[in-house]
C-alpha cells in the first residue's frame, strides 16, 4: 500500500511501456487510511510540482471528490487540509504487472492494464 503522493511519482517500467505509463492503474483496489503529520509548508511548496490531474483522477477513482478539477489560486486552509488528506493519508494498493519472481522485482501495471 502506498500513499497517493507516491502514486503521483511512480510510473510503469515494464520493457516497452514508455508512453502512457503514468499514472499506475488501480485494480481490485483496496484502501487504507493512515493519519500523517500536517505540514502546510510542505504542501504549499510541493503543490506546483504535483501532477494535479493524475492526483484528482486517482482520488476520484478511490471515491474521494474533495479536490477541485483545477488547482485553486487561493490556498486556503480547507483546501490544504483536503490536499493533505488525499496526498498523505489515503493509501491504496496497485496491481503488479508481472508476478513476483525470484530474480525479478515487481513490474508495475501499465495504463493499458493486464
Amino acid at each position, binding site marked *: 500500500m*502506498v*500513499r497517493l*503522493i*507516491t502514486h*503521483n*511519482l*511512480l*510510473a*510503469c*517500467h515494464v520493457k516497452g511501456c514508455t508512453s502512457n505509463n*503514468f499514472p499506475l492503474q488501480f485494480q481490485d483496489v483496496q484502501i487504507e487510511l*493512515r493519519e*500523517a*503529520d*500536517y*505540514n502546510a*509548508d*510542505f*504542501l*504549499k*511548496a*510541493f*503543490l506546483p*510540482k504535483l*501532477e494535479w490531474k493524475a492526483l484528482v483522477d486517482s482520488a476520484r477513482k478511490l471515491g474521494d471528490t474533495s479536490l477541485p478539477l483545477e488547482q485553486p489560486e487561493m490556498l486556503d486552509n480547507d483546501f490544504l487540509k483536503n490536499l493533505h488528506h488525499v496526498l*498523505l493519508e489515503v*493509501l491504496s494498493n496497485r496491481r503488479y504487472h508481472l508476478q513476483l519472481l*525470484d*530474480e525479478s*522485482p*515487481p513490474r*508495475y501495471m501499465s495504463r493499458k492494464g493486464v
Partner: protein
Amino acid sequence: MASRSVTSVTISEDPIAYENTHVHAIYEQIAPHFSSTRYKPWPVIAAFLSSLPPGWVGLDSGTGNGKYLPLPAESPGRVWTIGLDRSLNLLKIAKNAGGVCREVIWANVSDQPWRKGSFDYAISIATIHHLATYERRKQAVQRLLQAVSPSHGRILIYVWAVDQDDLSKREIPVVDDLSAAEEPGKDVFVPWVLPSDTVQTRQEQVFNRYYHMFAKGELTQLVSEAAEEMGLYVGAKSERAGIHRGIDFKQNGWERSNYYVEVHCWAV
C-alpha cells in the same frame, strides 16, 4: 570455522546472477539482524537531509531498513523520502521506520519505476558498491540523475572505500604491486556473522556479501562519466553557448571508511 576477514573475489559469472546470490539472497536472510545494527544516521547524511527546502520529495535508492526515511528529525513532514530496495525483508522493516508508516517500493536500483525528473533529491547510501560491474554501477548513478529534477535536483551517494578507518574491525587484503595513485577498487567478500541465538541451528552462520570497495577518486570518476554519457556538463553552472545542463560537485569526501559525493543538477 568460516573466515571472518575480508577476502578478494573474482566475478566470473553473469553480474545479475552474481548479485542475486552474493547480495540479494543474503540480505533476505540477515535482514532483522542487519537492521538491528543499523540505526544511527551518519552526520553528513543527516545534515544533507536537514539542508533541503520544505516541500521537497526524494528517493532513497537502496533504503535498507529505512533509517533515513524519518529525517530530518527536527522537522518531520517538511520533506518526504520514498524508500526503494531489492530486499523485501528489509523493506518490511523500512515500512515502519521510526514507528511511522513510510513509503517504500520494491525494485532494483537499476530500474526506473518513477516519472523521470519527479524527485527533488535522491540519496543512495551503501548500495552502489553491491553492483558487480563498473557498467552496472554507472547505470545506477544514471538512474539517480534521471530520477531528480534536471534543474535543481540534489544527489548524495555513499560507497565503501578501500581506505578504512582505524576503528574499523575489518582486515583488508593488501594488493602490493600497484602504486597508490593507480590503485583500483577491489572486489571482495565481506562476512556477515549471524549469531547462533538468531537462527534455529546451534552454530553461528557466516554469509559472504559481495562489495566493490571504491578506490580514491573512483566515485567522482564514476559519477562524472555517468553524467557525461547523458550529455551533462560536469562543473559549475555555465552560461556558455551550447551548454544547457550539468552537474556540480558540492561535496566530495571520506567519512568512516566510505567515500561520498553530493552533486547538484543545474540547467540554463
